[in-house]
């Protein structure tokens, strides 16, 4: 993580055109390609988890990698998440760069001791002699009508833990570069993949060097991203909610409301300067996330905005989130995940706020 994460050039991939270096890839393909390149470049990188070898993962993110790179580089483990993450610690101590996968977000819970007490603390506990260059891939969030524990929104839990970094891409381009960037880091990164976006295609510039993996940074991927410019208010989102917020922005534009969408990307560290820049301009903000409201990351974002923009804010920062209920089953998912109407209501609350 560069010290000034917001100094880097912001890039809006919606302006990309298909040129030689830009390919139309789904996020699944982009992630697969990134992992392939990581394995090819770093002989110490190893990928493992449940079914990620011969099957290529239940979402096929590791498809073909074992056949290409061998069973020592990409391997199936027994079905035990604590085992997978605990093993990552030992491999890191032995000089490897583990890229473990938990099959679904809810299965990170059985491994929470290894994530929180071990992976996150070993660098500190060992006074920096045992770094944990682990990238934990977590297929995250809901939206695919999956059974219980197959759709969760754990970002606040991870971001609260000292020693962990958390990132969630929203586009194939970012997925490709952020995964390469994360895997090149000496610190543990929780990589939250929006599973409902795995099959959406988008342009991926595969010619740009990934920041942090080349001699110079040139991708602008280490801070937040302005996904859409606007003047009247800022929607702050990450992961799967970014595309929904872009939809909302289109609808709001029909009513003459010019919405800016800020894709946070990094959930720890949060790009506070990008928040200040965007909301400093629009003077209104709505945070959108799938996780429950109480003690969610939205509260953190709202506080960061308040700290930098209190004097110029025209309304309190609003939140449109999931509810304080267990992530519901598929039939109720649409009621739980912030939908277009609820986000529009959030926008309305901010625009119509009057000081008492």
């Amino acid at each position, binding site marked *: *993580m560069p*010290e*000034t*994460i917001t100094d880097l050039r912001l890039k809006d991939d919606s302006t990309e055109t298909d040129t030689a270096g830009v390919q139309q890839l789904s996020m699944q393909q982009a992630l697969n390609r990134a992992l392939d390149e990581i394995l090819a470049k770093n002989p110490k990188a*190893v990928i493992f988890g449940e079914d990620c070898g011969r099957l290529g993962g239940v979402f096929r993110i590791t498809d073909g990698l074992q056949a290409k790179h061998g069973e*020592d580089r990409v391997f199936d*483990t*027994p079905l*035990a998440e*604590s*085992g997978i*993450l*605990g*093993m*990552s*610690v*030992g*491999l*890191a*101590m*032995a*000089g*490897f760069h*583990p890229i473990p996968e938990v099959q679904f977000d809810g299965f990170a819970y059985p491994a929470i*001791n*290894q994530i929180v*007490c*071990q992976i996150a*603390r*070993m*660098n*500190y*506990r*060992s*006074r*920096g*002699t*045992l*770094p944990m260059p682990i990238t934990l891939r977590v297929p995250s969030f809901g939206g695919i009508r999956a059974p219980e524990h197959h759709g969760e929104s754990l970002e606040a839990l991870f971001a609260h833990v*000292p*020693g962990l*970094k958390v990132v969630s891409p929203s586009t194939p381009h970012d997925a490709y570069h952020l995964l390469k960037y994360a895997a090149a*880091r*000496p*610190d543990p990164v929780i990589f939250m993949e929006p599973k409902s976006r795995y099959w959406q295609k988008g342009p991926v510039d595969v010619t740009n060097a990934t920041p942090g993996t080349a001699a110079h940074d040139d991708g602008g991927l280490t801070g937040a991203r302005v996904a859409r410019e606007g003047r009247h208010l800022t929607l702050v989102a990450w992961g799967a909610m970014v595309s929904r917020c872009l939809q909302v922005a289109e609808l709001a534009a029909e009513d003459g409301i010019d919405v800016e969408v800020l894709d946070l990307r990094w959930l*720890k*560290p*949060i790009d*506070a300067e990008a928040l200040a820049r965007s909301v400093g301009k629009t003077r209104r903000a709505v945070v959108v996330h799938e996780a429950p409201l109480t003690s969610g990351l939205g509260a953190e974002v709202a506080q960061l905005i308040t700290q930098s923009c209190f004097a110029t804010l025209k309304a309190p920062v609003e939140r449109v989130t999931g509810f304080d209920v267990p992530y519901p089953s598929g039939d109720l998912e649409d009621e739980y995940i912030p939908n277009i109407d609820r986000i529009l209501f959030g926008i309305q609350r901010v625009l119509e706020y009057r000081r008492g």
Partner: protein
Amino acid sequence: MTTNPVLAAVDDDAAPLTHHQLRELYTLMAAVRHLDTSAVAWQRQGIIPGYAPELGQEAAQVGSGYAVDRTRDFVFPTYREMGVARAMGLDMVGYMSTHKATWHGGMYNPLESRFAPIQAVVAGSVLHAVGWAHGQTLSGNAAGDMGVAMTYFGDGASSQGDVHEAMNFAAVMKAPVVFFIQNNGWAISVPTERQVAGGSVAARAAGYSIPSLQVDGNDVVAVFEATRSAFAHCRAGNGPVVIEAMTYRRGPHSTADDPGRYRTLEEERLDAGEDPLERFKQRLLTDGVADEAFFADAQRLAVEEEEAVRAGIADLGPRPGAEMFSLVFQEPTPALQSQATAWREESEHA
């Protein structure tokens, strides 16, 4: 005590311990006994806030630690492996700094000492050993030249799921790891019969098809030989081994514990058996390996060592507060850097 024949065949060529080695083992045990009992006294004197004694486990710890090859093996301790640390030649001030509350995990260098940071979530490091061991396999080390991981845990930790996941992973992957259980009879206040189903921890290994053996944990030579056999088995590429050293925790679980609430002195006397240090001394005398002058010398060395460690601990002093921030990440976050700046400014102002 049961021994699995699979292991016995592996190490047929191992030479018996020389007299020099036997004396060295005794010297180590005497040093560990004196440092351990002194550390309890340090706590009573207010020199350190807490300590987890290992009185009665000197043979299990020194015997196993003595078998480690520090050029290629790696040990994963919990918080009660002072004797292993000493047998492996750790910087004991660095080791004891954990108990002085100077730094979680200790001030020694785990990479140089081949001794992972001290660990309070007792089964957590058992999986780390499996990962490290599998790394040796992935590194393509030839059979016979394999680095071996040894992980220490107790009868209490064996109840945790991570131990079962670790044994299963290790067996499936044939990882070169020695699971070294010190069954000291008590998990704080709960005796083994209320802690370990199935009769013993070693018995569980059969379910994972891991060769296992129980060893008299109060016999330092037996422990050393069992550990040496297990290392040879692992090093040859045969996968993991479980050793259960049957011993007895003669003192409290920690300096905050009160064993009088859950066992009587009479029970302690009956259950503890023979003192491993005294037992080894009598054996060395009987076998003509050492004389009274040697034991007196060993005790003198132990006292000198303890005094040096105590002085080192006293000199440690608190760590600079900035380390609290600078050692969280290899690449600190902007938020953490600004918190460190604020802390510094507010501290200096105060």
